């Protein structure tokens, strides 16, 4: 009962389970502006979906969730389109470059090892930094934190870059080069790590672009939408790994979840959001570290899996 057959995954699934899973990940997506692939893909694999199909169908699902989430955040005035477009252009260029970089790395051998370790270390660093910083900010007076930010050497340095422009929604004045270069950086990393990049993009926007947390969430979702449209079409065309039925059930849950997530996000303060996201990043890091340390159940894996 309540089972549907997935023609591309080649398995049947419980509709209610998949719908619930979509809803849960949609809520996270709406709150934090992340795609949620880190959580969804392993859960789908666990219920018997082939790894490549799980990742590709998840991208299709994120298209729906991020459309819903972007709209919800847009209505709250949380989407900086100008910043988002620049990050996106950088991201696409970086992603294309990253695919070439990974080919070279794979030829050198043991690339997977380096990638995993870098990813775990980076998540650990970003997660811990965000956690400590937002914890301190929650304790301190907000105004004193703002004064501190203005004095930093980093702020002085970026103010000297050419082509300075105002990003009104974010309330910052920055060089156009900043989002472009950082977009390229995140694009390269996302391609190498094989992840959507939300986890890297959000801290980059908060700490390096100095954007307010709520605008970060909305803008990140806007950018994720375009990235996932590209991934869905490419995966459908080259690898035939997008299971539309699976994506449809997931996105019915996640688009609904994203609306609730955006409402929850609105009620939380920027630092509360940061500390929650930091905890999530640290959980993901711990999970990845455990995967590396614990003896696998089966010593063989399908190509393209985790």
């Amino acid at each position, binding site marked *: 009962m309540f*089972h*549907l*057959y997935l*023609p*591309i995954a*080649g*398995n*049947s699934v419980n509709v209610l389970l998949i719908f619930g899973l979509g809803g849960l990940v949609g809520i996270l997506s709406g709150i934090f502006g992340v795609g949620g692939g880190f959580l969804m893909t392993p859960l789908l694999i666990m219920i018997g979906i082939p790894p490549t199909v799980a990742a590709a169908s998840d991208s*299709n*699902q994120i*298209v*729906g*969730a*991020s*459309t*819903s989430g972007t*709209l*919800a955040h847009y*209505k*709250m*005035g*949380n989407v900086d389109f100008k910043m988002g477009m620049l990050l996106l252009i950088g991201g696409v260029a970086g992603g294309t470059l990253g695919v070439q970089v990974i080919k070279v790395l794979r030829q050198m051998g043991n690339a*997977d*090892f380096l990638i*995993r*370790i870098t990813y775990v270390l980076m998540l650990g660093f970003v997660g811990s930094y965000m956690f400590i910083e937002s914890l301190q900010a929650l304790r301190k007076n907000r105004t004193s934190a703002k004064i501190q930010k203005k004095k930093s050497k980093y702020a002085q340095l970026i103010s000297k870059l050419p082509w300075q422009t105002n990003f009104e*929604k974010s309330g910052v004045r920055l060089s156009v080069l900043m989002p472009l270069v950082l977009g390229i950086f995140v694009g390269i990393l996302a391609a190498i790590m094989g992840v959507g990049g939300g986890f890297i993009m959000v801290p980059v926007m908060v700490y390096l672009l100095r954007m*307010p947390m709520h*605008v970060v969430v909305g803008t990140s979702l806007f950018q994720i939408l375009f990235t996932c*449209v590209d991934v*869905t*079409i490419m995966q*459908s*065309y080259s690898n*035939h790994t*997008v299971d*539309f039925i699976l*994506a449809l059930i997931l996105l*019915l849950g996640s*688009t*609904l979840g*994203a609306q*609730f997530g*955006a*409402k929850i996000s*609105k009620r939380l303060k*920027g630092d509360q959001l940061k500390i929650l996201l930091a905890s999530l990043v640290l959980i993901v890091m711990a999970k990845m570290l455990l*995967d*590396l*340390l*614990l*003896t*696998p*159940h*089966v*010593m*063989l*894996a*399908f*190509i393209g899996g985790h």
Partner: protein
Amino acid sequence: MIWSRIRIPVVIMVASFIWHLQLACSTEPATTKFEPNLIAIGTFFNGTQLTVSGKAGVENDVAVVVSGKQEELTLKKKGKALGLLWMNQGDVHFKKVPNFYILYSSIGRMESAATDPNTLEKLGIGFEYLKNEMEIGAPAEERDSLADEFLKLKQNQGLYASHPGEISFEQKNEKEKSFIAKIWIPPQISAGEYQIRVIEIHNGHTVDNLKNQLSVKEEGIPLMLSSLAFNHSLLYGFFAVLIAVAAGLAMDFFFGTGKGGGAH
């Protein structure tokens, strides 16, 4: 003269003997039933049961194997990097492995006649036999453990299974008994042609080996979607994106907050 007198009775006797002989040989194949012969994968397909029933000698065992076509596979081998962290390390090629293999047998039951646990392997049936048959592109010392891991992976996928002692018997008379194998075909089975083998075993030897075809076909929405995904992949991709965006818009329309929420 004598020949012409006895010719007719002799011909009748020989014909009758041949007819009886044929009848005796064809008894089992004619009574073995396979139900169904065709499995349709529709929108709500969630696996199905295949029933194989027939008659066997009173002291015999029965095994039923459902197998798919042989394939070649390349998998990633997991190993320890720096003696600490588990990683995918290099490819392993497997050849001569069926894409689907499900075995049910009466061996292992209390009333089973077979005493030798290696009976099936000797007759070319079961996981041990598959292990010996598969070709693995790896050093000889790793062969055995890789073959075990391969079987484990396929069992986790639901594509391989072994059910010893899961064929039940009912005593018919002093010479024969009837058997019934209720075979679970998991939803992971893919469309294609499969072979069902029914093997009757006596004293470690095959006394009867019957083969039947099983067709698995997609129909309805699964057939439509997979043909679209493989034959018109770009269109399928655009269609998937379009529906996802439409769902996102619809959810915002029905459940979203109204305009003018204001920024923080």
